[in-house]
């Protein structure tokens, strides 16, 4: 048996305990090999680990990846996946020639209304923007960022629009709950605002003087 390399000698594989890969490594392998983002549930099912442990391992893996290498682990709509870190974007972009359509300001406004208010009708979008929104709406439907989900049960039975999973993916959102919270008045920065009641009161006094 001396012709065998030392690793294959019987005592090497008979006596040594089988080497189990670490759970973190298993999860890394699974996410890498999956052709779609992997959900926590699916990972738990495949690894036969409790979901809480998988979640802990995912956190560990994410931190580990963040520290070194070109890849990072992100949670997107539908699950976890590896993506390149942002600093490599210029290089990867040169490799791939994917052109993502530019969205107009109107399109972003329509998208924002649907994202935060869904489901909404076109008339509701028009009213909120104060301007007719058919063109940007159709553009977003064509891009499959929005879809007509149902008809509203009012006169004319207009379509109610919702955002698609593609929207979540393209905007790096895990779910709709992941949408940024909006501060009511930040839109009007520099506009200046006094309490509404005070102004009303002042105006009321002026009117009384007039009479």
């Amino acid at each position, binding site marked *: 048996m001396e012709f065998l390399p030392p690793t294959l000698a019987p005592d090497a594989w008979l006596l040594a305990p089988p080497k189990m890969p670490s759970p973190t490594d298993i999860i890394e392998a699974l996410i890498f090999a999956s052709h779609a983002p992997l959900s926590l549930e699916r990972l738990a099912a495949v690894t036969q680990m409790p979901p809480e442990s998988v979640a802990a391992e995912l956190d560990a893996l994410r931190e580990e990846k963040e520290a070194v290498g070109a890849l990072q682990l992100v949670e997107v709509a539908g699950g976890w996946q590896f993506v390149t870190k942002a600093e490599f974007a210029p290089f990867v972009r040169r490799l791939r020639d994917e052109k993502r359509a530019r969205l107009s300001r109107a399109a972003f406004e329509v998208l924002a209304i649907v994202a935060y208010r869904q489901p909404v009708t076109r008339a509701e979008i028009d009213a909120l923007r104060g301007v007719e929104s058919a063109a940007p709406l159709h553009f977003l439907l064509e891009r499959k960022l929005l879809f007509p989900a149902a008809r509203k049960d009012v006169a004319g039975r207009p379509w109610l629009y919702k955002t698609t999973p593609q929207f979540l*993916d393209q905007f790096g959102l895990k779910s709709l709950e992941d949408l940024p919270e909006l501060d009511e008045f930040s839109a009007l920065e520099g*506009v200046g605002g006094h309490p509404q009641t005070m102004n009303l009161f002042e105006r009321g006094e002026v009117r009384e003087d007039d009479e």
Partner: protein
Amino acid sequence: MIPATLETAKEPERFTGHAIRLPVFEGPLDLLLYLIRAHKYDIFDIPIRHITGQFVEYLTLMREVEADYAGDFLVTAATLMQIKARMLLPKTQSQSEEVMAQDEADPRAELVERLLEYGRIRVAAEELRQKREARDDLFARPLEAAKFQPDFDAELSQALLLAEVSSFDLLSALRRVLHRMEERPVALVRREAFTLPDRLRGITVRLYHSGELSFEALCDDCQSRLEVVVTFLAILELIRRGQARVRQLTLFDEIWLEGARSQASGARNGVPAPDSGA
């Protein structure tokens, strides 16, 4: 009051699918927010008189730049003027509590609410733009992009199934086919030269000379059904204008057309005109 850059500043990269392109502003609310910000007005105490003036000024400017612009701006201008009018009106001495309550309310309140709401949307839109930009820098393996199938609830996946072949896809397919059809004309159809205005002139001239003509006589030069129909329409039009009258002696008899001027002679002959009670 309006900066000079407004009329010239256009964003070439903006979405151009819309037939009506407005310079700079997305809509009336966008313009109002701009004016409030530019003049550092208090959103809760907008000087309606000033802002209406500036708004209308911009509208006039826009009309010069683009003849055809959206009516949404006009609607808002009307709203502004209505608020302005309501603020100028003295309080009514009404006993009705309802009217009193209406008087107490700030006429601007609804507009302010809309502006705040639109402001929030603008912030949300900007947040989304940044999110998208950040996401654009992250690349997954291409395989994922091709087979992206998230486990979503049934409603969504079914809707997506439908959305995959949307009505827009169908429409663009139709457009392509129609376009191909246009490329190979089957036959050339000459445009009908026989027009209603022409016929009107012709009949008027003939009536002037003859005073009275039968419908059949008027159709003597017609070469197709269409021309007969056009002649008939021309007669109807002359009657509507009061330039001619028709009469018929008995049912299914000849229809006679007479010029409005010879109407008196027709009445003298004892032939009742149809509109005089026949």
